[in-house]
C-alpha cells in the first residue's frame, strides 16, 4: 500500500489525535487535522490529500457539517476519496454520499468501527483506492426492506449479498465466511442472476450495482 496523504476532520481533540496516531502507525501521513467543516474544506484545497476522513457531525451547528463539507469537496473534485464517520448511520446520508461522483471512492462507516483498527485502516486504504465501503449497519437496513426478489435468496446468499454491498472483495468474503473463493464466486453469480443484475468481473462495479439495486433505483 502506498503511503497515503490524509486530511482528518474530527472535533473531539482526544479522538482526533488518536485517529491520527493510528493512521501514522500504519504508515500513512496525516497532512492536516482540523476540527470543523470549513477548516476541512480549506485544508483539503490547500494540501490536496489522497483521502479525506471526516466526522459527520462537527461545530458550529453539530448537525452534519462534516458530511456537507465532504459533499462540497466531492462536487469540485469528484475523484477525491472521502470516508465519512458517524455516530449513527442513516440511509439518507449513505445515499447522498453514494450519489456524489458516482459513488467512486466513497466510504461511510459508524465511528465504532475505528476500534477494529486493522479493518478501519483497511477501509481507509480501499476507499483511497477508489472502492466503495458501506457500513454493515446500512446494508442491514437496506436488506431488511425485503422487496420481492430478495425474499427468493437463501439465507447464505443474503449473507454474501450483504458482504458484497459492504464493499468486500471475493477473497475477503471467502475469509469472513470461511469457505473457498470458488464457492463465493458461485454464490455471487447465483445472486446476480436472481436479482437480474449483469455479471460483473470488476469487484468495484459489482458493489455499486448491488447498492443501487438495494436502494431501489
Amino acid at each position, binding site marked *: 500500500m502506498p503511503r497515503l496523504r490524509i486530511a482528518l476532520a474530527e472535533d*473531539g481533540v*482526544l*479522538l482526533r489525535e*488518536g*485517529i491520527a496516531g*493510528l493512521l501514522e*502507525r500504519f504508515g500513512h501521513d496525516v497532512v492536516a487535522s482540523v476540527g470543523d467543516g470549513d477548516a476541512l474544506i480549506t485544508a483539503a484545497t490547500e494540501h490536496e490529500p489522497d483521502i479525506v476522513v471526516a466526522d459527520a*457531525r462537527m461545530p458550529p451547528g*453539530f*448537525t*452534519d457539517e462534516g458530511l456537507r463539507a465532504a459533499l462540497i469537496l466531492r462536487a469540485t473534485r469528484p475523484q477525491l476519496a472521502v470516508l465519512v464517520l458517524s*455516530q*449513527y448511520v*442513516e*440511509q*439518507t446520508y449513505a445515499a447522498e454520499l453514494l450519489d456524489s461522483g458516482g459513488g467512486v471512492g466513497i466510504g461511510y462507516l*459508524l*465511528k*465504532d468501527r*475505528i*476500534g*477494529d*483498527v*486493522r479493518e478501519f485502516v483497511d477501509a481507509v486504504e480501499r476507499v483511497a483506492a477508489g472502492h466503495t465501503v458501506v457500513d454493515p449497519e446500512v446494508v442491514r*437496513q*437496506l436488506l*431488511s*426492506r*425485503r422487496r420481492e426478489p430478495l425474499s427468493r435468496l437463501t439465507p447464505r446468499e443474503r449473507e454474501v449479498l450483504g458482504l458484497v454491498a459492504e464493499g468486500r472483495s471475493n477473497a475477503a468474503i471467502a475469509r469472513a465466511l470461511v469457505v473457498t473463493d470458488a464457492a463465493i464466486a458461485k454464490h455471487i453469480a447465483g445472486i446476480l442472476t436472481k436479482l437480474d443484475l449483469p455479471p460483473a468481473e470488476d469487484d468495484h462495479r459489482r458493489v455499486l450495482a448491488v447498492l443501487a439495486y438495494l436502494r431501489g433505483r
Partner: protein
Amino acid sequence: MTRRPLAFLCSSWPWRSLVYLLGSAVYAVAACLLIYTGYVYGAWVASATALLVLVVLALPSAAFERWRLRLVDRMPTDNPHVKPPKKGLRAWLSTRAREQATWRDLGFTVVGLSVLCWMDLGLVSSAFWLPVLLMSGPFQPGMHWADGLPLAAGGVLLVPISAYMLTAWAGTRAMITRAVLAPGDAEIIRSRARLVDAFEAERRRIERDLHDGAQQRLVSLSMKLGLARLDLPPGSPAETQLAEAHEEAKRALAELRELIRGIHPQVLTDRGLGAAVEDVAGRSPIPVDVDVSLPGRLPPPVEVAAYYIVSEAMTNIVKHSEARHGFIYGRLHDDTLVLEVRDDGVGGADPAAGSGLAGLADRVAVTDGVMTLSSPPGGPTSLRVEIPCPVAV
C-alpha cells in the same frame, strides 16, 4: 384568513363558517315560537314558558354550542361541568346548581336567543342573498339583460368579500363562545405544549452531552484497546483478556447509540420527518412500506410529535398486532399534516387497555391534533393522525 386570498377562498373555512352560523337557526326558531306564544296567550304565559325552556334547555344548548365550535375552531373543547359525586337526579341537580359553569351556560343561552342568533342569521342572509340577488340581475323580469350585467358583476365581486365577512364573524363568535362556555382549556393546552417543548429541549441537550462526552470517550477507549491488541501476540492470556474488554467496549458503544437514538433521533433534526420515518421503517423487524411525501421541513414541534407518534405506533404494531406488513403514509394537506400507520395484524387495539395508545393520544392532543383509531377484532388496525401545521418551512 391570514393566508393568500385564493388559498383562503378555495379552503373549507368559508363553508365551515357558513354552516356554523346557520346552526343558529335553531335559536331563531325557538325565539320566534316564544314571541308567537306571547302574541297568542299573553306576556305572562310567554315569560313563564321562556323561563321553563331556559331552565330545561340551557345545558343542552350550551353543549350544542360547544359541539358546533368544532366546525370553526380546531382546539378541542373540554366540558367545564364536573361529574356529580353520586348517581341520581338529586346529586346531579345540586352539583349543577352550585356550578359556575351552569350559570354561564344559562346566561349564554339568553344572549344567544335574544341577540347572537339574529346577528348570525342577519349576517348570513346579507352575505348570501345580496350577491345572489345582484347576480340574478340580468334575469329579473322587467329589466333589460344589458342593464343587469353591471349588477351581476358587482354580485360576483361581493362573493369573496362575503366569504371574508362570514369567516371573520364566525371566528369572533367562536372566540366569544369559547371564552364563556369553555374557558381555561386553551390555556391548559398551551401550557401543556410549553411543557412538551421544554422536555424536548432538555432531551436534545442530554443527547448532545452524551454524544460529545461518553460516546467520544468510548470510541477513544475502543480504539486504544484495539491498538493495544496489536502489540500483543494473538492468543496470549493478556491478549484474550484485552479482546474481551474490547468486545465489552464495543457493546457499550452500540447500546449507547440505541439509547441516544431513543432520547432524540439526530436524523430528525438533520433531515426532517421523511428521512426519520424511513429510518424507523428500516429498523422495524417487519417489512414496512413508506409513502411519505412532504414539501419541505415542518415546524420542529410538529416534526417531533409526528416522529414519536409514528415510532410509537410501529412499536405497538410489532409488539401486539402479529402483523406481517406495515404501511406508513404521510402528506401535508393544506395546513394539516396527515399521518396514517396501518398494519395487516389481528386488530383489537384498545386505548383504554395499554398505556401506549393513551400516550399517543396525549401527544396528539398537545399539538391540537385529532387521532382516529380503527382496530376491529380480527384486524386490520389503522391509526390516523391529523396535526395542524401552520407553515411549511
